[in-house]
């Protein structure tokens, strides 16, 4: 059977960074194919090439065995290749039906849009897919999971032969994910080729027939049937070297009074009854699905989200800080954001300025005077510690690779000398070597007595680094685990805590807390 869509030797670089190197992939009609790999392995680049969003530097794309060009997403869509992106791309004030049909809204005889006909068409499609959303609702009023269903429906309107889903379960609860899988199986049965992009192993085994694994931009396993692909081999293929680093996990038992203690904290965003304590020198993991409220909780500790009940107490003074400014200057809290581009660095500013951003007030002489030499002296040590070798600190941060950029955003906090560091997805989109350096530094920070709160959806990372792990689900803490350092054991316990909590909450679901998307 020939492939509906295939890529041969696909290569794509960004600047000096080769994101994808001679990758091959084949998708067959009616099959669900998993594309796996860690963050930064090249999954997004590959699907953007298949969807006509990027053009390959080398290699070709075959459709039904014929070499084809996909110069734009429009052409790809016309060929029947559709992508459901990780981020939502809906028009908030438009109805569900209009978001699905968009440029194909039905017209009346006078040439005007026929909204009731659109609702009928959308309803039929939604019924067929088993999605229970009224077509006339504005998408702004839908939950994140419902919005994703609308995006899938949009993609399936018309003739779709290939559907690519990029990390579709990142913001879904297990129950919602099951609904999605039912839908995808139905589609496959109807003959659609599906590429399911994920790094969640259990999901892939539950849903897919075969898997292609990417690591550092290369295909390391090509269309291997999952029935003959043991979990251990799959993990090894994905993680490669870094699993060795993972084995070195050596959780410690850090005693002593907490550096920061949250007791019964509720926030304006819907957190309830949060208890959490980080001790000096401890790495405290905070694990949960995207959208479970981890990032938002960090913002509450930083004084950026209003606390409506409970207390946040720091070793020396009562919190929470009134503002991020106060958190940084007086509470000495550092925060490496998950969103490096938007919250981490100012890419067109010099490396030096970025590394000093949280510490200028400490570097400056009296009267707020700063010379370039003061800055260079302050950042030299931390940058050397992070193995950041660059000749010229006056160059814009944008000239650095992704991993080095991440190092600069960590260096910023080393310069500021914090007491509590919050790392939010510190290694997302970072290559393996840089990841190891960052891990080493998070450990060293803790050994030097800094308290660390580590937020990550990468369970392996959390287990590798943490001393204790708090599990978060649906804006609550649903478990506190002493880390045994054993991945298999810990992942089962973490998943069980989340599943128990979701089962409970979906049974007695009264209202859903307001969620902010941080994807």
């Amino acid at each position, binding site marked *: 059977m020939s492939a509906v869509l295939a890529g041969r030797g696909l290569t794509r670089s960004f600047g000096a960074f080769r994101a994808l190197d001679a990758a091959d992939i084949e998708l067959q009609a009616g099959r669900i194919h998993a594309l796996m790999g860690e963050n930064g392995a090249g999954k997004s680049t590959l699907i953007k090439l298949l969807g006509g969003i990027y053009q390959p530097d080398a290699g070709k794309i075959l459709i039904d065995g014929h070499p084809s060009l996909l110069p734009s997403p429009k052409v790809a869509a016309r060929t029947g290749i559709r992508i459901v992106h990780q981020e939502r791309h809906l028009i908030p004030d438009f109805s569900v039906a209009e978001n699905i049909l968009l440029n194909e809204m039905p017209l009346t005889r006078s040439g005007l849009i026929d909204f009731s006909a659109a609702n009928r068409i959308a309803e039929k499609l939604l019924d067929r897919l088993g999605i229970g959303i009224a077509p006339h609702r504005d998408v702004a009023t839908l939950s994140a999971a419902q919005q994703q269903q609308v995006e899938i429906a949009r993609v399936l309107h018309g003739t779709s032969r290939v559907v690519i889903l990029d990390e579709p379960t990142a913001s879904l609860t297990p129950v919602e994910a099951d609904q999605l899988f039912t839908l995808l199986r139905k589609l496959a049965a109807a003959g659609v080729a599906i590429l399911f992009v994920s790094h969640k192993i259990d999901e892939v085994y539950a849903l897919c027939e075969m898997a292609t694994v990417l690591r550092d931009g290369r295909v390391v396993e090509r269309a291997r049937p999952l029935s003959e692909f043991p979990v251990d081999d799959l993990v090894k293929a994905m993680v490669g070297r870094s699993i060795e680093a993972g084995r070195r996990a050596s959780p410690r038992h850090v005693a002593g009074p907490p550096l920061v203690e949250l007791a019964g904290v509720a926030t304006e965003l819907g957190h309830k009854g949060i208890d959490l304590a980080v001790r000096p020198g401890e790495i405290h993991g905070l694990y949960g699905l995207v959208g479970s409220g981890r990032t938002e909780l960090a913002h509450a500790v930083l004084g950026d989200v209003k606390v409506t009940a409970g207390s946040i107490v720091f070793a020396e003074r009562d919190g929470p800080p009134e503002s991020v400014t106060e958190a940084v200057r007086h509470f000495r809290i550092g925060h490496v954001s998950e969103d490096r581009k938007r919250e981490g660095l100012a890419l067109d500013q010099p490396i030096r300025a970025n590394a*000093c951003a949280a510490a200028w007030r400490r570097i*400056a002489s009296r009267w707020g*005077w700063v010379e370039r030499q003061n800055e260079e002296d302050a950042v030299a040590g931390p940058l050397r510690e992070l193995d950041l070798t660059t000749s010229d600190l006056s160059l814009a941060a*944008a000239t650095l690779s992704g991993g080095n950029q991440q190092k600069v955003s960590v260096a*910023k906090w080393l310069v500021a000398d914090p007491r509590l560091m919050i790392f939010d997805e510190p290694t997302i989109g970072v290559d393996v070597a840089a990841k190891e350096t960052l891990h080493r530094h998070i450990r060293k920070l803790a050994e030097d007595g800094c308290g660390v709160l580590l937020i990550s959806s990468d369970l392996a990372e959390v287990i590798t680094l943490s001393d204790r792990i708090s599990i978060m689900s649906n804006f609550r803490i649903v478990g506190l685990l002493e880390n045994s350092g054993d991945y298999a054991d810990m992942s089962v316990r973490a998943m069980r805590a989340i599943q128990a909590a979701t089962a409970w909450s979906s049974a007695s679901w009264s209202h859903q807390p307001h969620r902010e998307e941080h994807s």
Partner: protein
Amino acid sequence: MSTWRLKGRLSLPAILFCLAGAFAAAFALLSPEFLNRANLISLQRSVAVELIIGLAQLAVLAIGGVNIAVGATGVAAAMAAGWLMQEAGTAWLLALPAALLLGTAIGATSGYVVVRTRTNSFIITLTMTTIVFGAMVVATKATGFNRLPTDLTAFARLRLAGGYVTPLFAIALLASGLVFLVLNRTVTGREILMTGANPRAAHASGIATRKLVVFCHAASGLLAAIAGIVLMLRNNAAIPSMAGNLGQEWLLSSFIIPILGGASLFGGRASVAGCIGGALLFAVLRSGLLTSGINDFLLQMIFGLLLLATVVAGQMAAARDEWRG
């Protein structure tokens, strides 16, 4: 610290100085009057006003905002000074600081409203323009003040450095030096540029971004007021129409000068040296083209094209250097 460096070649301000020099030489060849003392003095006076106008815009561009009210604020401050001195009989030593305070207050108000309402500075300063200008015209009944204290008129007529430098130009250079030091040698300046380049990152680094926005707008208001007073000294009178209806005549030059000098409309890049080069080039071109008989209207068109060419060229350079990922 100039953040815009053209890899190993001439820096942008240097290019602007050279261009201004080349044009000056060309105009001098075309018409010898261009270099006579009177013209040099008048050239300096216009550089002085344009430079301060450019700095007033630069102060908000640095943090990624705009100030449409530069002209209205400048005129309002000059008119306030004129009224205080001529009608209220206030000594100039009090009247001028009061006018500067008024400009600062207008700017600070804009900045405060911007951060409180989270609305972009364009629309806030646009409404501020009409409120300030309208209030000024209503209060003064659109009549000018042309009897300035003799101290001031004498000061404006002073000639320094062998008769070739006017005190107004010295004021402009002094203001530039001050802005340069704040922007490039202080924590506040560093934090302003970081906020302009990426407000979310600045906020996450503990920088008090909202205070800085108010500070920049206040500084812009202060500089606009200085520009208004310098123009009043140059004209020997405070006139409601000295910056056109609603102060619109300052609008174009306030943007073209810093942007020629490499400032970014999106914040984070602001060069005082570039601003000086931009003001020089702008004033030389205008004076030279006017003396060679090109009318004022065509000139506006030429400067519009120049602005467009500058931003397009800057964008193309940025696109070439872009690092994607």
